[in-house]
């Protein structure tokens, strides 16, 4: 079995991976913050352009399901003492991760660009941390070695801890602690699982003739390792009922970090499900299909319903994000090509939508000084541009047919319907709730009678120890969207529209990889429940 079909002369993936860290280092040493403020987004944009090349170089000829653009270095194995531990530096992309790499490039560029004008305190440190975070995110999606993956997986946490803990709003200490303890608990069990895998197989490489995918564990052993991995990914997503860190963390995060957290890091969980849980433990995935699907359906309805009764718009968007992420899990655990293709497509859509919605929250908050829906109303009269751009994301958020999110949602539910018509029919009820809460969000803020003009908030209440408690913007903005704010929205809106008309652009590249994965799952020995064809 060949390992890759397609290699380049330059180590493209390594460059993409390390460029943000290099940029971070430079930002650290440049003399002025102003320079760092220009440099960081420039690095992120260059990295995005490079990541777009990955998509260009990703070929659909031959065995398109294999890892492409592989980049393997022997320096870890050559280190004395750990040569036999199965740790390798090995990067590559397949049909699923190639899109997540490009998505990471795009969303991080947007997030870092947003940070340059949304963050005022300690901007340089913020940018440096965001750039480090970008490296970790790329690493998660590129690593073909399980240990390497885990290193990047944990590396995401370190910048996240500071980004949330230092720049967060309100109850950020509580939120940070909850987020951290939850995630570390999950990844700790995954680490145990990784050790176990290594002890059984002697390798941690995913691909290759001796790789983990080619040699699955026996079904009984699969169960426990599967659960260990699942817990880590389910928390990151977050899957119901492990979600309770998310509303707190999301609602206290600074919005630029939130684009990374809700936009990309949650996808790392979904990606982990596809790449590791399903591919490494096909039998166990089959056995837990029903349980996880039901949890995901409950999660969809539960979070959508809670979004309906929130008054804090940031929490509202947080719950809508949870609802959509549970849909993605549902699609993955349809364990057929249609469902998983849809899930990958929906990862892109969700990332775009949720970033757009959180940006809208930031834009609204920056103009009204409040996050509470009852205090808003009629804003669209004063800021029509904000209203209409926001509306695009509202429509995408409620999966309006014709927009990108519908394509993904449709494929997911179609895949689920093939396995179990009841699951899909009940899960589809979420679209009614989604329409309801999204329209409520839009109308209660933008439409209706105008409320009293809001005066800039007084000094933020300073409780002991929270020196940096401030609204996202220091002062309220008076006018409609600024050019910078519009610019952040342009690529997102274009993506939403394009993916509604031509989702095939994504799915046909994803499909070979997923089809191979599904064959793997379907042909795995299945002692317990097994789905239909």
């Amino acid at each position, binding site marked *: 079995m060949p390992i890759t079909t397609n290699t380049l002369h330059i180590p493209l993936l390594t460059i993409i991976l390390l460029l943000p860290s290099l940029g971070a280092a430079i930002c650290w040493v440049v003399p002025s913050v102003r320079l760092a403020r220009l440099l960081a987004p420039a690095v992120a944009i260059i990295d995005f352009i490079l990541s777009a090349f990955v998509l260009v170089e990703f070929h659909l000829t031959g065995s398109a399901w294999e890892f492409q653009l592989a980049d393997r270095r022997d320096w870890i194995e050559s280190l004395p003492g750990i040569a036999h531990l199965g740790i390798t530096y090995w990067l590559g992309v397949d049909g699923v991760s190639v899109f997540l790499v490009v998505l990471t490039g795009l969303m991080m560029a947007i997030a870092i660009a947003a940070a340059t004008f949304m963050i005022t305190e300690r901007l340089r440190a913020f940018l440096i941390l965001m750039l480090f975070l970008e490296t970790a995110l790329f690493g998660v999606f590129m690593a073909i070695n399980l240990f390497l993956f885990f290193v990047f997986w944990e590396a995401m946490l370190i910048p996240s801890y500071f980004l949330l803990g230092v720049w967060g709003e309100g109850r950020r200490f509580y939120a940070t602690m909850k987020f951290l303890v939850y995630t570390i608990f999950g990844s700790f069990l995954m680490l145990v699982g990784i050790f176990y895998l290594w002890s059984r197989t002697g390798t941690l490489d995913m691909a290759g003739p001796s790789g983990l995918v080619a040699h699955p564990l026996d079904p009984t052993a699969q169960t426990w390792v599967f659960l260990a991995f699942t817990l880590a990914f389910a928390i990151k997503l977050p899957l119901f009922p492990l979600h309770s860190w998310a509303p707190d963390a999301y609602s206290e995060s600074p919005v630029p970090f939130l684009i990374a957290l809700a936009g990309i890091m949650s996808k790392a969980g979904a990606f982990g499900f596809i790449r590791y849980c399903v591919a490494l433990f096909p039998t166990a995935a089959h056995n837990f299909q029903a349980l996880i699907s039901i949890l995901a359906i409950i999660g969809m309805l539960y979070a959508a319903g809670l979004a*309906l009764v929130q008054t804090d718009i940031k929490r509202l968007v947080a719950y809508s994000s949870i609802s959509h992420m549970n849909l993605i899990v549902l699609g993955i655990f349809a364990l057929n*090509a249609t469902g998983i293709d849809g899930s990958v497509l929906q990862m892109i859509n969700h990332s775009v939508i949720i970033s757009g919605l959180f940006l809208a929250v930031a834009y609204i908050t920056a103009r009204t000084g409040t996050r509470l829906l009852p205090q808003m109303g009629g804003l669209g009269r004063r800021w029509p541009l904000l209203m209409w751009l926001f509306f695009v994301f509202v429509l995408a958020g409620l999966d309006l047919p014709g927009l990108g999110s519908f394509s993904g949602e449709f494929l997911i539910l179609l895949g689920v319907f093939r396995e179990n018509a009841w699951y899909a029919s009940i899960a589809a009820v979420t*679209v009614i709730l989604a329409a309801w809460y999204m329209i409520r969000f839009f109308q209660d803020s933008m439409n209706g009678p105008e409320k009293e003009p809001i005066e800039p908030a007084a000094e933020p209440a300073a409780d002991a120890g929270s020196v940096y408690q401030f609204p996202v913007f220091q002062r309220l903005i008076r006018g409609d969207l600024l050019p910078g704010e519009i610019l952040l929205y342009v690529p997102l809106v274009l993506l939403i529209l394009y993916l509604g008309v031509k*989702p095939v652009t994504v799915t046909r590249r994803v499909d070979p990889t997923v089809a191979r994965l599904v064959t793997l799952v379907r042909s795995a020995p299945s002692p317990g429940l097994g789905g239909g064809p």
Partner: protein
Amino acid sequence: MPYAVYLILFFPFLGFVLNALLPLNNRVVSLVGPGSVLLAFVSAAYSFNWLHGRPDTPLGRSYDAVFTRWALAGPFHLNVGFLLDPLSSLMTLIITGVGFLILVYSTGYMRGEDGYRRFFAQMDLFILAMLILVLADNYIWLLIGWAGVGLTSYLLIGYYFLRPSAVAAARKAFVMNVIGDWGMMIAIFMMFVLFGGVDFNTVFTKVHVQPYDGLIPTVLALFLLVGAVAKSAQIPLYTWLPDAMEGPTPVSALIHAATMVTAGVYLIARSYPIYQQSPFALHVVAFIGCAGVVFAATMGLANNDIKRVLAYSTMSQIAYMFCGVGVAVYSAGMFHLLEHAFFKALLFMGAGAVMHALGDELDIQKMGGLRHKLPFVYWTFLVGVLAIIGTPLFSGFFSKEDVIGAVFGRAQSGDGWDWLVWALLVIGAGLTAIYMFRLFFLVFHGDPRDRELYDHAHGPGWSMKAPMLVLSVLAVIGGYIAFPGQYNLLDAFLSPVFARWPHNGPAIVAQPFSLASMLATLLLTLVGFLVAYAIYYRRNPAPQRVGSLAPAVYRLLYHRYYVDEIYDAAFVWTTRTFYRLTDRFFEEDTLDNIVDGFGVVTRLAGGWLRGAQTGFVRNYALGILFGAVLIVGYYVIGGR
């Protein structure tokens, strides 16, 4: 050239883009808005003509222009195309033709409103979505158009988006329509799983081998019907339509009368091989229709809002169309759809002209005697009223006769349930005459009830008059494409569509003309007219006085059978309360406490263990001794 199909779609798209993105001034917008739709109409007429010139066979009269590949995921793949056949061609003509007239009317009606450009951009977008709906050759793009018209309907109902009632109405319309979308989505999933595709051709060539009247085609047809009743405002998902009158009147004319709300009828007619496979589902369609005819008409009897009366009448008339397609005489349903587009658009334009004259007054209790002030509106409105109640030789007579006659014919040929449907339709015809003439007399006859309003009333300008004139002419002559017992051009024109795919069930043929049915209908219509005449023309009373004759009934009708209140309590309030309680007691108390509980337990355990770290050597020594004793004891007693 068949590519005119693309042009039909292109011009409204262009109009939308220009109006939405460019800061055009109102004069240019007035050109771009109606102009783009006129060009679309020309393209549609050209396509119609082109299609008509093709061989008169089912395949000859059907042209599928493949446009692009939409998605590919595992076994699912879909190539999107636009299907031009007599059915879709007829619909494009109605949409662009009536749409153009209404947009011309709008240039007069909307003059001076805030958001003039926004209005035309959204109207163009609506026309585009509606055209996608009728031209799509597969159910997914039909659903995309379906949701698109729902979106534009939402936007235009909420056109005055600072007015709370408009905002609430828009939200209600949107969410109820999404319930319909849900049903459509399930139906589409079923199609793919059962037939391996969701384009019309695949579905229709395979559905007829499903068990006849079996569970599968019935469930499929009923899920499609969920979409149809939501969009067409039929029982039980109709309560959004009266509220939708919050939008500007041209919107009510185009979207909530002539085109969008009839999409459900189109959907059923289009999906005829599915419905043919399930007589049960067809009966459900007919029952929903006949119940809706009477139900909506009775609500129209007691309403005092000029536009809402028309809204209930729309619901009632669409229910007639449902009966037509529900007895598998699809051409009858489509015929009434066509004529209804003419006369109902005309009636709404008349209502709009009255509102325009009276400073947006909607309450018919404050009107009266307007025939002196607005003679043009009076006469055109009269034409609309005569057409809708089915006065002989007016267009509504032919189409309504077609529907009622079709039901009668089916009943005669052995379908016993159809007698019930027929009876309700005939009663409905009588009720229509009552509520329409009640409206007419209260608005235009008698003495003015509000002098102030009456004195300031002024007639519409030519941009409003011209479309009304054209529609009046159509409302008179539009029906002559079919003459009861003589000829039926529309049925002949549409027949290739219904011969295109194999199907079971009742034969799709126009039913024989029945004099008895026609006379019964005309008799009840006449009775209805006389009732309205006796009460509202001769006596000219205030509506409340009429109500006091039977206060309980009047209250029930006036409050619309309390259905809105029931829905609010049963669904809206229940859902919200359930999730409020969940948020408070499960999400916050239970889940968070469990999570925080872990933290507390860990801290407590840490605190307790910290107690062992006393720092005194003697304590540690004691510990070591204790441990040593345990270990030694284990080996001694265990005897390993």
